[in-house]
């Protein structure tokens, strides 16, 4: 097998791999929504409800240190 042939096979399999990754990602997005692990579409509200006093869509969790600090430990 000469170099050109190896390149051709590598090219084909790499393309097939990338296509699999792309469709795998789409599948992952839809499956996690269907299983209820994640609701991606709610994040779209972040642009609309964006006053500093608005309730965050998902509040950032406090770090362990700051939780301890708040409890006075």
């Amino acid at each position, binding site marked *: 097998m000469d170099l050109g042939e190896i390149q051709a096979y590598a090219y084909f399999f790499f393309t097939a791999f990338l296509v699999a990754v792309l469709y795998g990602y789409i599948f992952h997005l839809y499956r996690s929504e269907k299983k209820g692990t994640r609701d991606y*579409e709610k994040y*779209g509200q972040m*642009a*609309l409800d*964006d006053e*500093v006093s608005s309730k965050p*869509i*998902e*509040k950032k969790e406090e770090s362990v240190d700051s939780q301890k600090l708040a409890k006075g430990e």
Partner: protein
Amino acid sequence: MGNQNPLAYDYTVAKWFLWATIAFGIIGMTVGVFIAFQMAFPELNYLFGEYGTFSRLRPLHTNGVAFGFTMSGIFATWYYVGQRVLKVSMAESSFLMAVGKLHFIVYVLTILLAVVTLLSGITTSKEYAELEWPLDLMVTLFWVLWGVSIFGLIGIRRERTLYISIWYYIAAFLAVAMLHVFNNMEVPTYFVAGVGDWYHSVSLYAGTNDALVQWWYGHNAVAFVFTTPIVAMIYYFLPKESGQAVYSYKLSLLSFWGLMFVYLWAGGHHLIYSTVPDWMQTMGSVFSIVLILPSWGSAINMLLTMKGEWEQLQSNPLIKFMVLGSTFYMLSTLEGPIQAIKSVNALAHFTDWIPGHVHDGTLGWVGFMIIAAMYHMTPRLFKKELYSKKLMETQFWLQTMGIVLYFSSMWIAGITQGMMWRATDEFGNLSYSFIDTVTVLHPYYTIRAIGGALYLIGIFIWAYNIYKTMKSGRELEDAEVNVNKSPMAENR
């Protein structure tokens, strides 16, 4: 943080960058229109001695609009959108506020020095990377400051998830940092060999390698200055202004990763039929064509966001700017891949079709998005109603006409030029000499300059409208500001 006053977003830095956007827009585009007239009427080259020649002014135009107008627009929107979608105010961190102000000062100083050095003819001669090494260091400094601002604000955010726009700002930050550093690897000749002035340098790369690095940089400057941060803008401003959440968040995820993966490999299309290895040219072509998918993913997502709300296109001039902007994004991201096909490139390369293509994207997509973003921000920054809706409408139609004249004349000019260069008689001799093409192209150059002038008039209308808003727009209550559709004077 004072407990007496309710927390509010602090737009000080955003305001400063808004003014810079307008100022650099006027400077960069006035120079652009002037050099467009020089192409049609060469006598205009002799008005200001060496400082008025096309060769001095062209880098001033490209740097002025890319790194002056566009970049100020990117920074202005970052200091606005960043706070809002992360739900954190700059007023909460005096450190980030100081970084933001320093960012602005170093940035403006750099761009002003760029104007002076480019006018004086001090240049590395690398397209879009003309600035000499001392200025490159200043660019690095303000870029790092921007990075501190981005990641600092992310660090103190209230919203756990980063909104789509934030990903695109981060991508722009990381990619430009990498591009800037690697393409500006240069040797200061005075310090290394005692040759030239202290600010002179030569590239670290030679020959074909230099060309490859240069066009990896050049094309990705388009990607990460003219595309990703502008996509960041539209993902925020179009949903907000229309009151419609983005059509599909999942599609935005897919388009983002697609764009990130593909864009960096497409630069080779600038070097088709040159001395770089053939496989690199082919790779550049192929990746350019694949690039249609993620680009159209974002653009279609934006158009579908308007689903059921298309009557806003008639009633709201800001929606007009953004929808047309996203349409021009689709047009230029289809046109680019077509030009990257080897056989089309054989005809198109070095012709006027290329600046035609660039200006579809920059005037139609980048310019319109920044104009709309600044209009949207103005009432929120100054708590004033936008001064005139009619002026906005006039500006929109003038500029749209300008863009159409620009690209149609350049399409015709470019293809005519390409066909004339390759035409041969039955013996294989070239049918035309270079001057024949110049004569034929003259009317198209004139039309292009007129198109550019119409766009520039629009920029002056935009500046005037924002100035009048600040000076004499109706004062707004908080409740009137905190709405989706930008408040504007309907009858003026």
